[in-house]
């Protein structure tokens, strides 16, 4: 009596059901989490309002991208790989040069008074530029900001920017605000 084996439940169809569900999820879902470069577009300006207040020449870092995907940075032909260093030098202006942006002493929470640069990066592209080239430029500019922020975080808070708390990140963002301005599209006649 007691030696009788316990009857096994027939679970063979359970596998079928599970496979069915599995295949459904394999087909109906996607794996990829979306990643990208986040940007804010400027709000549209009414037509009657004229251009923005003039900015001093030394405070503007012009980046032009033509239809052959070539870069003109501050009047010089530059390769994309050099753009980051140029942008970093422009934003930080470590040697306080005359031709690089002015700085303004600003009170920043957690950091104290810090000379914040007034520099603006102006990016203009041709309608014929390749999207990849454009994104590369955006990426390098972003990289310049990220590296500067990271360096500052290491000096002030002794940790990388990504490890800083929200308040600390906000403070660093105040020191290095991301100012990438894209020119209004213009129509040039051929």
């Amino acid at each position, binding site marked *: 009596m007691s030696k009788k084996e316990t009857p*096994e439940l027939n*679970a*063979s169809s*359970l*596998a079928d*059901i*599970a*496979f069915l*569900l*599995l295949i459904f*999820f*394999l087909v*109906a*879902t*996607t*794996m990829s*989490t*979306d*990643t*990208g*470069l*986040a*940007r*804010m*577009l*400027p*709000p*549209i300006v009414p037509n009657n309002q004229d251009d923005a207040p003039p900015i001093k020449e030394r405070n503007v870092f012009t980046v032009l*991208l033509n239809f052959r995907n070539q870069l003109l940075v501050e009047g010089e032909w530059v390769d994309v790989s050099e753009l980051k260093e140029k942008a970093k030098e422009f934003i930080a202006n470590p040697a306080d040069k005359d031709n690089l942006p002015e700085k303004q002493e600003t009170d920043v929470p957690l950091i104290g008074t810090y000379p914040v640069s007034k520099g603006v990066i102006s990016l203009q*592209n*041709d*309608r*014929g*530029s*390749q*999207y*990849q080239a*454009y*994104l*590369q430029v*955006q*990426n390098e500019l*972003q*990289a310049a900001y*990220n590296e500067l922020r990271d360096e500052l975080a290491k000096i002030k808070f002794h940790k990388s920017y990504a490890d800083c708390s929200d308040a600390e990140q906000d403070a660093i963002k105040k020191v290095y605000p991301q100012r990438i301005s894209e020119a209004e*599209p213009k129509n040039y006649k051929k």
Partner: protein
Amino acid sequence: MAKFKKGKKNAQQKLNTSSLPDIVFMLLFFFMVATSMKEVTMMVKIKSPEATEVTKLEQKSLVSYIYVGKPLNSRKFGSEPRIQLNDSYATVDDIESYILQERENMKESDRPKMTVSIKADYDVQMGTITDIKQALRKAQALKISYSARKAVK
């Protein structure tokens, strides 16, 4: 020797598959957790551009997508880059109403956080993208994200 003979008689023994459902369920749960539902069927070919400084898009429910690329069915639709909104081809003029509609579908409190992700093929000309950006500005959808893959160094 006798023992071997005995074994041969039982050759038709059943394979024990009782752990198979467990394994399959494990896989099933993995896919349920790690994936998300497909939003649309792609009608354009997109090979994402690469970038190193990408950030993740946080809340999927706040994101609307605009796809730009060459049509998959190039014999029927040509090889000029097209814009895809939801499940159909569209023009730049449709973007404004699309954004308004997407915004309408969102919760009131989420509307300011709405993000538009531009998923464009790496080879698209910037003219199209500029037009889209102008349309987005008109629609007051200012938070955008240029979709890109994380480049492997």
